[in-house]
C-alpha cells in the first residue's frame, strides 16, 4: 500500500555504535568494549553494526577529553584543517573518524550512528535529535518511545542557529544521540547501562523491521526543543556565586514557571526564574558544563510530525 504521505527511504546497510566520545562516560565505553568481544546482541540480518571507541586516549585516562571536546569538532573547519604537529588530539581524531564513517554530507557516510553518552543530570534515557525534518530518525524515536512505555523517553531537539554543536555522530546520514543519566563521571551503574542497552536494542529492532519492508505511517511525537542556555550567576571575577536550587535539582524535563526557584546563593538566598512562558529545563547541573558556562538548558515542548516511511527496496 502506498500513500502520498509515505517517503521512500534507502534501506539501512551500515550502522555504527560509538562509545567513549567522552572518556569518562562509562556506559558507552563498556557496552562498546563488550560488543567488540561479543557482538551477537547487536547483530541484525542484512545489517553491518560496528561498535567503536571514538576517543581511546580519553577512555584510557578516564577523562572527558585530552585537548578539546571531541563532540564539538565535527564542523567543516576542523574537519578540513591541515594536520600539523600541534593540532589538538581530538581534531586529528575527528578527521580519522570522518574518514572511516563519513565523509560527512557524502553518500558514502554511514547510515546511522548511535552515540552513547552519560550525564550527571537526571535526564533518564534521553534521545537527541539533530534535525527536525529527518523523518527516519523521528520514526525511530517514535518506535523506541513506544517500546519503552510506560517508561519515559524524552526526545531533545538540538536544532538551533547558534546552539547546535558539531557532534561526532553528525557525520552519519541519521545521527542518534543517546544520553542516559544520572550517572557520575567515572562510574558504571548497572541500571543506567541496562537502560542504554534497551534503547539500542529497540533502535536496532526498528532498523531491522524497516529494512524488511514495513511501512511506518505518519507519526507525531512530543519533543523538547532547545531554546537557550542559562549560566550560573557569577561575580566580577567570574566565580560562580550560586548553585542549582534544591527545587530545580533533578527536575530535568519538569515544567519551570515564572517566579520558581532556580539558584541558591552560598549565603542562602534564592534566585527565581523570570520568563514569559513555561520552560522545560534539561542538563540541570551537568558536571561537564561548568566550564561551558551552562547551569541548565531551557527547552520548550513542541509536537513534531514525521511523514510515513518505507524502505525503497520493498
Amino acid at each position, binding site marked *: 500500500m502506498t500513500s502520498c504521505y509515505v517517503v521512500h527511504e534507502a534501506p539501512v546497510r551500515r550502522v555504527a555504535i560509538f562509545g567513549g566520545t567522552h572518556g569518562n562516560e562509562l556506559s558507552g565505553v563498556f557496552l562498546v568494549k563488550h560488543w567488540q568481544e561479543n557482538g551477537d546482541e547487536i547483530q541484525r540480518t542484512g545489517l553491518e553494526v560496528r561498535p567503536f571507541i571514538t576517543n581511546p586516549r580519553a577512555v584510557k585516562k578516564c577523562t572527558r577529553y585530552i585537548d578539546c571536546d571531541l563532540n564539538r569538532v565535527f564542523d567543516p573547519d576542523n574537519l578540513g584543517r591541515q594536520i600539523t604537529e600541534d593540532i589538538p588530539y581530538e581534531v586529528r581524531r575527528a578527521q580519522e573518524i570522518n574518514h572511516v564513517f563519513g565523509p560527512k554530507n557524502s553518500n558514502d557516510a554511514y547510515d546511522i550512528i548511535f552515540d552513547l553518552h552519560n550525564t*550527571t543530570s537526571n535526564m533518564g534515557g534521553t534521545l537527541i535529535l539533530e534535525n527536525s525534518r529527518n523523518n527516519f530518525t523521528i520514526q525511530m524515536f517514535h518506535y523506541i518511545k513506544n517500546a519503552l512505555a510506560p517508561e519515559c523517553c524524552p526526545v531533545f531537539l538540538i536544532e538551533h542557529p547558534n546552539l547546535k554543536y558539531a557532534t561526532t555522530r553528525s557525520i552519519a546520514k541519521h545521527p542518534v544521540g543517546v544520553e542516559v543519566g544520572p550517572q557520575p563521571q567515572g562510574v558504571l551503574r548497572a541500571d543506567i547501562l*541496562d537502560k542504554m542497552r534497551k534503547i539500542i536494542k529497540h533502535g536496532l529492532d526498528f532498523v531491522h523491521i524497516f529494512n524488511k519492508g514495513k511501512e511506518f505511517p505518519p507519526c507525531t511525537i512530543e519533543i523538547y526543543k532547545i531554546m537557550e542556555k542559562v549560566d550560573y550567576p557569577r561575580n566580577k571575577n567570574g566565580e560562580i556565586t550560586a548553585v542549582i536550587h534544591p527545587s530545580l535539582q533533578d527536575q530535568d524535563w519538569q515544567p519551570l514557571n515564572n517566579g520558581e526557584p532556580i539558584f541558591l546563593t552560598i549565603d542562602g538566598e534564592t534566585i527565581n526564574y523570570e520568563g514569559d512562558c513555561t520552560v522545560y529545563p534539561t542538563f540541570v547541573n551537568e558536571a561537564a558544563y561548568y566550564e561551558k558556562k551552562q547551569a541548565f538548558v531551557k527547552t520548550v515542548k513542541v509536537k513534531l510530525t514525521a511523514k510515513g516511511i518505507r524502505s525503497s527496496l520493498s
Partner: protein
Amino acid sequence: MAASCRLKPLSRVAVCGGTHGNEMSGIYLAKHWLRDPMELQRGSFAVKPFLGNPRAIEKRVRYVGQDLNRTFTTEFLSSAEAEDEPYEVVLAREINQTYGPKGSAQAFDFMFDLHNTTASMGTCLIVDSEESLLPMHMCHYIQMHYTRSPCPVYLYKLPGEETYSINSVAKAGLALELGPQPQQVVRADLFTQMKDLIACALDFIELFNKGTVFPAFEIEAYKITGRMDYPCYPDGEISAMVHLKLQDKDFLPLNPRDPIFQTFSGEEILYEGNTTIYPAFINEAAYYEKKMAFAKMEKHTFSIPGLQRE
C-alpha cells in the same frame, strides 16, 4: 562505672576543603569561609579554613601527582626534598609545617576534612579509630543533634596501619564524607548538610571547651576490615559491574551468597564470605583506578568513656 577522661580544651581548629580537587561541597564551603569567616567563629577557639589541594582544585581533578589524602605518612613527610617529586608530596610537607608537625605538641588541636563520594553514604562521619576519644564524642553529639539524616560512623584505620590522611596532622580529626554526589558537581542539598554538620561539630567543641561533662555512652560504628575488588579480565579491565541489588546499599548488611557483581553478559557473581559484612564506598569513582568496588566493614558497638576538659 568508667572514669571520665579529661582532655585539654581545643584552641586551634582547622577546616579543610578540597583535599580532593573534584569533591565540590568542601571546596565551595572553604572558599565561602575564607571570604566570610564569621559563621565559623565561636567564643572559645579559633577556626582556620583552608583549601587542601589548590592545583587539583584549579584543574577540578582528584589529584595532580598522587592522592594527597594518602601522603601524610612518615615516609613522605620526612623524605628529603627531591627534584621530581609529586606535587602532593611537597604540599603535604607544607601542610604538615603549618598545621603540624604530625605527632608534635605544636600541631593543631583538631582538623575537619570535607569530602564527597559518588557512593550513597549519606552523611558519614569518618574517624581513624574508636580509641580517638574526642572525635568519638563529637560523632555522638552530632548523631544526637543533627537528626535530618542518620550519621553512620566509619572507622578507617586498619590494625597496625599508620594514619595517612590530611587530618592526621592534627592531634585529633574528623572527616565528613557526603554522597552521593558526582565529581565536579555541587548539589545544594549536600552543601547545606555539610555546612550544618560543621556548625553542629563546632557547637560541640564550644560546649566541651566551656566545661560541659559528656557522660560515657555506647555507640554503633562500622570498622573497616578489608576491600572487595572488581573482577577483571587478564588485561586489567574490569569485567563486571556492581550488582543492581548492591548499588546504593552502603551500610546495609551484605550476607553470604548475596549478589555483588553482574557481568556484561548478565551473569551474577555472589558474595563468598562466611559472615555478614557491611559495605561502604560502593561504586566510588575514585576507586576504579585501584579496582576497588567497595570497602568491607564489621558493625561493632563500642563503650566510650565520659569526657570533660582539663
